């Protein structure tokens, strides 16, 4: 049984101009122990997807339809109180996008992390602090620094502390939203190493959200490519890079420079990502797709299996038949 199973999820934001269809029909399965990369350009709905699962959507975000199963349990039938107490942070945890700059400057870093434990578990402060020290060494921070304030931490240390905080209540599943985007390349490599080690040591299941294909290529076991509120392709990591089937996946890989290849002309994708207030009809990529056919602007392509765990949503794969 997958640890997370999301079926046809739709989450919209109400605005004065209408609904922003930020997540609009997402299917996704995550197996235990996997590290799945959720990749897409900014504004495609990655954060919204994560916030929906954690029930942390802002006030104007609303659930439209779909199912979220966690270890087979239907999350949408669990009331908020139970979800807050039993699930969020305890079983599913989250490293916010930009979290490293969101620490409260007036409290010691260690206290902020211990607080999460005290809220969810029946532990004494002393024991909680001991556990925080343990978490610090796990993420590679000197345990003596639990008494430091956030400003005494470098950027990389803050990000590790946020990871430690997400781990505070021993969750099974952790979603990290752009955990290295604000970091310089060497600190990014250090942080990704910490994440990889943790996964191995703790047997964590994880979802890494990023716009950076190279980060996913180097840390994840599977990959979902998201475009304009939908997943367009899903496969194990090697397949996504060696046999991409969706034109968007192919184009994104083509647009992404690698330092290891010979100098080449970089190719961009024509046009820009759509506004999700009024996304294109049919396949949302059709206005930018070099292979678009008549049907592409008329019908939403189905997410079809291509063998193994490889899925893509493109009319080309069904010969243009609906």
């Amino acid at each position: 049984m997958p640890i997370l199973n999301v079926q046809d999820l739709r989450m919209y934001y109400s605005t004065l101009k209408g609904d922003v269809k930020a997540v609009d029909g997402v299917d996704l399965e995550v197996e235990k122990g996997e590290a799945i990369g959720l990749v897409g350009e900014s504004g495609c709905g990655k954060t919204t997807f994560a916030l929906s699962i954690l029930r942390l959507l802002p006030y104007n975000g609303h659930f439209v339809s779909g199912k979220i199963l966690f270890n087979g349990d239907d999350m949408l039938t669990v009331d908020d109180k139970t979800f807050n107490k039993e699930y969020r942070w305890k079983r599913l945890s989250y490293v916010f996008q930009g979290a490293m700059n969101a620490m409260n400057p007036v409290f010691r870093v260690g206290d902020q992390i211990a607080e999460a434990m005290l809220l969810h578990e029946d532990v004494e402060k002393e024991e909680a602090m001991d556990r925080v020290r343990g978490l610090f060494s796990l993420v590679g921070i000197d345990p003596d620094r639990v008494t430091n304030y956030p400003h005494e931490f470098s950027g990389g240390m803050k990000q590790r502390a946020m990871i430690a905080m997400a781990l505070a209540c021993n969750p099974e599943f952790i979603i990290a939203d752009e955990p290295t985007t604000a970091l310089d390349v060497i600190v990014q490599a250090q942080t990704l190493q910490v994440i990889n080690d943790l996964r191995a040591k703790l047997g964590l299941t994880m979802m890494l959200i990023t716009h950076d294909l190279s980060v996913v290529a180097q840390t994840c076991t599977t990959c979902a490519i998201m475009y304009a509120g939908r997943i367009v392709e899903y496969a194990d990591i090697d397949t996504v890079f060696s046999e991409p089937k969706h034109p968007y996946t192919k184009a994104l890989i083509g647009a992404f420079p690698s330092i290891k290849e010979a100098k080449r002309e970089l190719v961009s994708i024509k046009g820009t990502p759509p506004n999700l207030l009024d996304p294109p009809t049919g396949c949302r990529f059709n206005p930018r797709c070099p292979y678009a056919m008549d049907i592409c602007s008329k019908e939403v392509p189905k997410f079809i299996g291509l063998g193994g765990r490889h899925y893509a949503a493109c009319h080309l794969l069904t010969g243009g038949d609906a």
Partner: protein
Amino acid sequence: MRKMEGQEVELSVVDLQKWFPVRKSFVSTLTSKKTKYVKAVDGVSFDIAKGEIFALAGESGCGKTTTGKTLLRLLEPTGGHIYFQGQDITGIGKREMKDLRRRMQIVYQDPYESLNPRMTVHDIIAEPISIHSLADTTAEVDELIYRSLKDVELVPPEEFIGRFPHELSGGQRQRVAIARTMVMNPEFIVADEPISMLDVSIRAGLLKIMLKSGEAKGVTYLFITHDLAYARHICDRGAIMYLGKIVEMSDMDGLVNNPLHPYTVALMAAVPVPDPQIEKAKAIISGEVPTPIDPPSGCRFHPRCPKATDLCNREEPKLKEHGEGHFVACHHI
């Protein structure tokens, strides 16, 4: 004029320094402690040949932007010299600078900051045309504006001309910024992380627009970036900075495939590759870049360097040539 491998030198920077005084607290003013400085750029030298695209790379805070702004004299250098087409522009006056302001341009990272939010696209591009008297009649001005919008592929121009910056996407704003720059026919452009705020799918298109229109006219570029993968595909040569100093300089192949300075080696090893089959990026050094106030003695990288010895602590290594056109500042090469 100096020559580089038989090429004309467009820009030559010699021992450039830019220090910013650290704001003193009230108490330290009273106790009259010596003023401290952020040594943002501290003795940087390089030449760029005419028509070349030169990368200035390194982690944030290493002094890339300060170097770019100082060599355009948008900041006054603390020390050193800047030669543009053979002329020392370090001390020249306002009147002479006005013409240089047209010939030497900068494209910023955030186009939103560099475009006046209260001006239409038309006026944004018309402004430099009028300042530098690049056209005589309104018809000529409009023609120039239309042509420059077409050059950056904002077509049809009529659709964009009346818009304000907030009515444009990030990519479109950056195109307007480039149109405004290009309309002045600059000879040298500092491009300061021009794509880092844009979506991956549109970055290459923007680079092409910025670089291709210049290529035909022999424009020279200083491309400032923290993203080595882009530098690898766009630039001819480049320099790596660490704490206000250049540690290595070479053609891009040399930097990427044969890095010699331990810092460059660590930097290259840490760049993730969009290919799961390739060996993972590694952090081969620990810690983070220290502050440029009171930087480490000797080689500024020595406290983090796996090869560091006593010498590195004592003496600052000079940038020396190791192999043709490949310069490294390290005692242990």
